[in-house]
């Protein structure tokens, strides 16, 4: 049973289609991240769900209630959906306390206590309540925006790149705190971001978006290891794409044999590996040249090594090219990031070993 259901949502600005038939299903009390390059339409999708804009076509239902369909569009202020915007969008003319209490009825008994509780929940000091937004740091502003959005106990919370204005260190801790907070409050959350690491670490479900469509929707692990196309593969992290020949659950690639999930037989296919799956084992020059013909393992010579602190970027020339179709590829060097402690000297030889399965992409 899905909590938020989006069906066939489309929206154009002039000739430009910002959203082109989006379907999305969000289970209750879950976290969904929508990730994509800037201009892909992810913020438009969020604004349509929030009710700030009306779609050209499509339906949105929340908990069985229709928010938008062909006939009606419920205005934003009746939807009861919380929104935290990119830079908080705090009201500059109101104090922090008034910002947090903005959506609360003015005559509510215990209003001040309610506001103080909310501030406490998001980890704000009570002394801050009398200040103005411009006197707060970026992290504090985001916390105020979150408290303000939580005040009305929304069942759905939309986060529009709320962490992008924060510095790196703060970003991760804030993300973790927000995720925990919203889950314990039983609030379903949708996060829009252009940062793939943020999307993968935050969400139960990730949707990769491009040009107004979803390229792929799934769990973070599934998307990372089983991307549906090269764009998704490369967007979610470094990817090594190789030509391969498939047979009996194995793939022959320029860097050796690797198991694949597919049992099909194909002479020309493409597989993807994540760099973490590759292990380099130093070997002697003799072994490397002697076993150059062994098909199970590939050997390489370190041609270039760029030191960059915690890691090195290593460039390998492949020594053995198992078969003809891959020969052209084999001539191009394999470039990998390795931990600096591995200390691969220039001119030394390595055996390339692959951990786990490769993913057949096409």
């Amino acid at each position, binding site marked *: 049973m899905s909590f938020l259901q989006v069906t066939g949502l489309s929206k154009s600005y002039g000739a430009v289609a910002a959203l082109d038939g989006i379907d999305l299903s969000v289970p209750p009390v879950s976290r969904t991240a929508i990730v994509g390059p800037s201009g892909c339409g992810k913020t438009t999708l969020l604004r349509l769900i929030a009710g700030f804009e009306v779609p050209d076509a499509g339906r949105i239902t929340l908990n069985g209630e229709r928010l938008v369909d062909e006939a009606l569009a419920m205005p934003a202020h009746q939807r009861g959906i919380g929104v935290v915007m990119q830079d908080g969008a*705090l009201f*500059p*003319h109101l104090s922090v306390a008034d910002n947090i209490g903005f959506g609360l009825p003015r005559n509510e008994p215990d209003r001040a206590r309610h506001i103080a509780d909310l501030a406490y929940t998001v980890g704000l000091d009570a002394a801050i309540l009398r200040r103005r937004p*411009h006197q707060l740091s970026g992290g504090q502003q985001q916390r105020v925006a979150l408290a*303000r959005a939580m005040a009305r106990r929304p069942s759905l919370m939309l986060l529009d790149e709320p962490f992008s204005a924060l510095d790196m260190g703060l970003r991760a801790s804030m993300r973790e705190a927000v995720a925990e907070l919203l889950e314990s409050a039983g609030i379903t959350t949708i996060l829009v971001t252009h940062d793939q690491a943020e999307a993968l670490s935050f969400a139960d479900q990730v949707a990769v978006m491009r040009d107004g469509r979803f390229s792929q929707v799934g769990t973070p692990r599934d998307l990372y290891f089983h991307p549906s196309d090269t764009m998704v593969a490369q967007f979610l992290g470094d990817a090594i794409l190789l030509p391969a020949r498939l047979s009996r659950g194995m793939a022959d690639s320029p860097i050796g044999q690797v198991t694949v999930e597919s049992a099909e037989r194909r002479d020309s296919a493409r597989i993807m590996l994540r760099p973490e799956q590759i292990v380099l084992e130093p070997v002697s020059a003799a072994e490397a040249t002697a076993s150059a013909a062994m098909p199970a393992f590939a050997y390489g010579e370190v041609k270039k090594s760029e030191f960059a602190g915690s890691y090195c970027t290593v460039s390998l020339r492949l020594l053995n090219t198992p078969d003809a179709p891959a020969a052209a590829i084999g001539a191009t060097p394999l470039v990998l990031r390795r931990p600096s402690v591995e200390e691969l000297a220039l001119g030394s030889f390595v055996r390339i070993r692959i951990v786990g399965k490769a993913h057949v992409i096409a």
Partner: protein
Amino acid sequence: MSLARSVPLASTAAPIRQRQLLPARSGMVIAAVVVSLLSLLPLGFVVWSTVDTGWVTASALIFRPRVGDLLANSLLLILLAVPISTLLALALAWLTVRSDLPGGRLWAWLLVAPLAVPAFVQSYAWVSLVPSLHGLLGGVLVSVLAYFPFLYLPIFATLRRLDPALEDSAASLGLGPWKIFLRVTLPQLRLAILGGGLLVGLHLLSEYGLYAMIRFDTFTTAIVDQFQSTFDGPAGTMLAVVLVACCLGLLGLENVARGDERYARVGTGAPRLAAPVRLGGLALPCLLLPALTVLLALGVPFLTIGRWLAAGGTKVLDMGEILPALWQTLSLALAGGLLTLAAALPIAWLAVRGRGALPRLLESCGYVVGSLPSVVVALAVVSVTARLLFPLYQTLFTILAAYAIMFLPRAIIGLRASLAQVPVELEHAAASLGKSPARALWATTVRLAAPGAAAGMTLASLGILNELTATQMLAPNGTRTLAMGFWSYSSELDYAAAAPYALIMIVISLPLTWLLFLQSRRLADR
């Protein structure tokens, strides 16, 4: 111990720095202080003449029914015209910024354009259209039409750059459209409304021609009447005291209402443009408001002038009279504009580059003096030159100095804004590349601040072009500017002969309203 060591250090370091920095800097400071002192002359005159008149005479002249009547007139005028202008400006600004009103951009400019019509020309147009127009209601009608753009401009500019994310947030927090406007949008417009309202209020207090034409007595008309009958007698001066008190009262009121609020946008992201509200079937009725406003504020003057020109035919186009007036007006406007700019330069420079209390004090001096009605400035300059500096009495220099005092704030605003955009590091960079201080200043700051300086000067010149009250009281014998020519003909009820003068003034001013439009946008972005 540590004290003993720090003293010689400080005393060796300080002279070197002072020797290098003193000449340029102290020159600017001295110039700024002199300009400020000179600009305080009208205020000093008011204080001095009160003391000179003595308490008994002064109180007899101030606490009398006539003053009470004038006070009631002025207050009623402000209490009616300012709120009406505010509502009108708000509605028009919302329609032209936030709705899909057909022709939005064009309307925006047309709604600023009435600033090109001098208030007394607006009044002339209405009186010749509706001869029975007079008194408070007539005054309110013409005042609103003449001055609402002073409110429309800042509201328009602020509304344009308001972050729509705030309104979206309010909607997601459960507020309907009307409540969003009242609780989020309107508070953001507060500074614009207060500033514009103050400007309108000050104009209402200081305008002479508009109210003389429709026979509505205000302090300013009464002072001019007194001046024309008794020169600078104590009766007129004491009226000026009350008028100055009213102006300072308005200034103080605005200052209190403004408080020390800061409505800075929080956060860094680029603000999205608000999606225009679809008016749908309401578009036509909504179109009526700007259309009617433009018709009344621009159409009526143009129609009236056109009608009088047609009625007068070639007979009223006496080029032998009009061309010298045009020439005199333009020379006065240019010379006055240059003098104002020169006077504003040290104050603006100090305000941007200086530190401490002095620059701020000097700058606020300029604003207080700028809020004084031209009639008071003229009265002060006349009295001082007639009594103390007779050689200067009714000379070109005197009237130019009075212009400089009156229009100083306009020039400071423009200069300040553009000086602020030139980082001092550029000057340092030029110096490190081997330019002398003067050449560094010329090659960087002066070059880059030139557009702002030109804008400030143009605004001052525009003010001089349409200035009537002070020009009448101060101009050397034989001077006849466009405004004076217009005024003498329309006072003789020769409306046809006055028409060409009115038309020329409007046509020269029209392009300048565009400048005002641009400047208000830049100020709002600061």
